[in-house]
């Protein structure tokens, strides 16, 4: 585990180095006058903000994953049965992600009707996913696997719960975006359409990320 971790850290450091080195080599004490720096500045701030936030979430869940792998090698680890329902839930989340991607494509072409339909569908799929997760919890507690029965159970509830919380946060933004999409558009206001396009785009990024995260968690939880 430590080797893996160090290896990733090393790779990350090298990448960071390459990304920054060309910029950090500037001899800023020599060059006078206006220099423009493109790159990040061309990107909308909200987008950068989201990616930084995703880095934070990645850090959070990576730590959980490392701990999980460490802990699951202990002899007292009693893995719990994976409810079949989780496969169905996974399909729902995939559908949600696809719907958001369609909404994003529609936003690129300014097709408001398609945005509305796909955006709403994405939310419905996601809510269904969350309901399915709660149902899976119910199934587990009914068969006697409680939060504190075994560390395997504790981790299962904790990780699925945290993932669900992140989706709930996403749904909050989704609700705002959907309300904006259903509002009667003002044909004069160009920034409104651009704002909607950006919101849909950011939602889709977040959803794809949480889908990917779920796939990793699902694989991990069911393979221990």
């Amino acid at each position: 585990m430590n080797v893996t971790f160090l290896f990733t850290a090393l790779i990350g450091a090298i990448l960071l180095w390459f990304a920054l080195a060309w910029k950090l080599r500037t001899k800023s004490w020599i060059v006078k006058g206006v220099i423009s720096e493109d790159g990040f500045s061309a990107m909308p701030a909200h987008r950068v903000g989201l990616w930084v936030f995703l880095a934070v979430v990645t850090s959070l869940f990576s730590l959980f994953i490392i701990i999980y792998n460490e802990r699951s090698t202990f002899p007292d680890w009693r893995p719990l049965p994976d409810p079949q329902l989780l496969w169905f839930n996974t399909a729902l989340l995939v559908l949600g992600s696809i719907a958001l991607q369609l909404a994003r494509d529609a936003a690129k072409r300014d097709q408001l009707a398609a945005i509305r339909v796909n955006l709403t569908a994405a939310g419905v799929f996601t809510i269904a996913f969350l309901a399915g997760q709660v149902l899976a919890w119910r199934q587990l507690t009914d068969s006697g696997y409680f939060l504190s029965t075994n560390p395997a159970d504790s981790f299962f509830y904790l990780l699925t719960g945290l993932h669900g919380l992140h989706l709930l946060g996403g749904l909050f933004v989704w609700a705002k975006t959907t309300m904006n999409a259903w509002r009667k558009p003002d044909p004069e206001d160009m920034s409104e359409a651009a704002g909607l396009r950006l919101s849909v785009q950011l939602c889709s990024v977040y959803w794809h990320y949480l889908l990917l995260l779920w796939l990793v968690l699902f694989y991990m939880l069911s393979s221990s």
Partner: protein
Amino acid sequence: MAYVAIADRDHHLHDPQTFITKYIWSQDHKVIAVQYSITAISVGVLAMVLSSMFRLQLGFPDTFSFVTPENYYQYVTMHGMIMVIYLLTALFLGGFGNYLIPLMCGARDMVFPYMNMLSYWVYLLSVLVLLASFFIPGGPTGAGWTLYPPQAIADGTPGVNGGIMLMLLSLAIFIVAFTMGGLNYVTTVLQARCRGMTLMRMPLSVWGIFVATILGLLAFPALLVAAIMMLLDRIVGTSFFMPEMLSMGDQNAHNGGSPILFQHLFWFFGHPEVYIVALPAFGMVSDVLATHARKNIFGYRMMVWAIVAIGGLSFIVWAHHMYVSGMNPYFGFFFATTTLIIAVPTALKVYNWVLTLWRGDIRLTVPMLFAIGFIFTFTHGGLTGLFLGNVTVDLPLSDTYFVIGHFHMVMGVSPVMVLFAAIYHWYPKITGRMFSDTLGKWHFWCTLLGTYAVYLPMHYLGLLGVPRRYYAYGSDFMPDSAYTLNSSITVAAVFVALSQIFFFINVIWSMRYGEKAGSNPWGATTLEWQTPDTPPKHGNWGAKLPTVYRWAYDYSVPGEKQDFVPQNVPPRAGIVAGRDHGVHH
């Protein structure tokens, strides 16, 4: 041109109208910075009072009886946690990060002002939750600031009923607040710099705060994970960290938890935390030194690289806090090596500060005194770090006063020296008035000499083997010859605490009666000193954003009339673009 700074776009600024939107529910980064600072300093004062109280107990165990053993552990715990998280982190990043980033980058405000406001109010909530633990039955937790399980949530530890839960909850809330603030700082530095402000033209203060924020964003999740899991252990009875054990003679209900796991998580956060505090301090002290020495910072590029390198390395040294937890010797060897490697960029920075002073036109103003004081305290604290970084030396010294002396010098006194330097340095900009020089100098000398009187003897006590965390020392734990020395530490600690009164009188009195400072009293080059109004008004820059033509350290440039050239002054006519004048390279 593709470059349109976000702040240049014509979006509507949230103009504050009433007293409430202007000073309370404010989205202005400067007001939020002051709110953060006042809150952080207030809890900091509380933590300082707590330290004086437990020091009285330690220095004169037979004279004072108002500190019980339970209180002693609670005070020590709260002192540590408040100082590290709620004072230093909040003041450096929430306070100075908020104030300096938009002003130094030439932005009108943070990129997400609403979230910035929320960040402060959530931070305040975390402080209130923490303080609430003083008023519940059982009081705050006495687990030590590292909150190691199992004892943190085992019966017999003070505050095990409510205190520990409020502590963990408060930490979780703080992390949410920090994440909201941190997203703002990073995005603002990346996206909202004014025209011409390239990354390599940013003042080192911004660099330090920027990298520290990234560290915080990646490291605080570890603390969040630990806090959530320990809360579950405590409330629901899971066994993430709690092993099966006998507690007060009874079998506990847990089994199989790993306390070492908590230590890894805690220090995976805890060590970067040292640099979350240190990097902004490094940055700000560089700016103070360059300004008051009227010289460009020595090795600007190297300073930036060192900040980035220290930031990266800080993630692979955490286990040097755990040498005594029974680790594989190879593991210890690895961490000893990385720990000693991190001394290289850090030492580079110290050399560069000293070389900045060398043959400078040094003005011994109050901020400069504190900045030079920092070089001393940081070097001393850093050197003892080399001792403790080696496994074989650490083993006998671990859990002695040597460790306390080391980390208080390096991450207690040193960042606080920079904080005072920074507060005095930017005070004229924040309030528009000058502070009293005399009071400031009294404050400096009392603080510097006083803290040395506190922490130098601690190293000696540690070498004698005096253990830390003990409520009272009989002659079993402290040789008789060291008793007077131990008491002198307490006298000095109370003296330092009292001498902070100079600071508060100065800051409060000068706000009203200080001389008007003018917009640039130190003759500084960075953008915050070039604002049209002092203190800067909402939106910072009046009608037009500044344009940056040069780096942040054009002090004493040969051929220029003044000994400083602000960043927003264009190169003079007749000078070949892209070439410095009169300097061979």
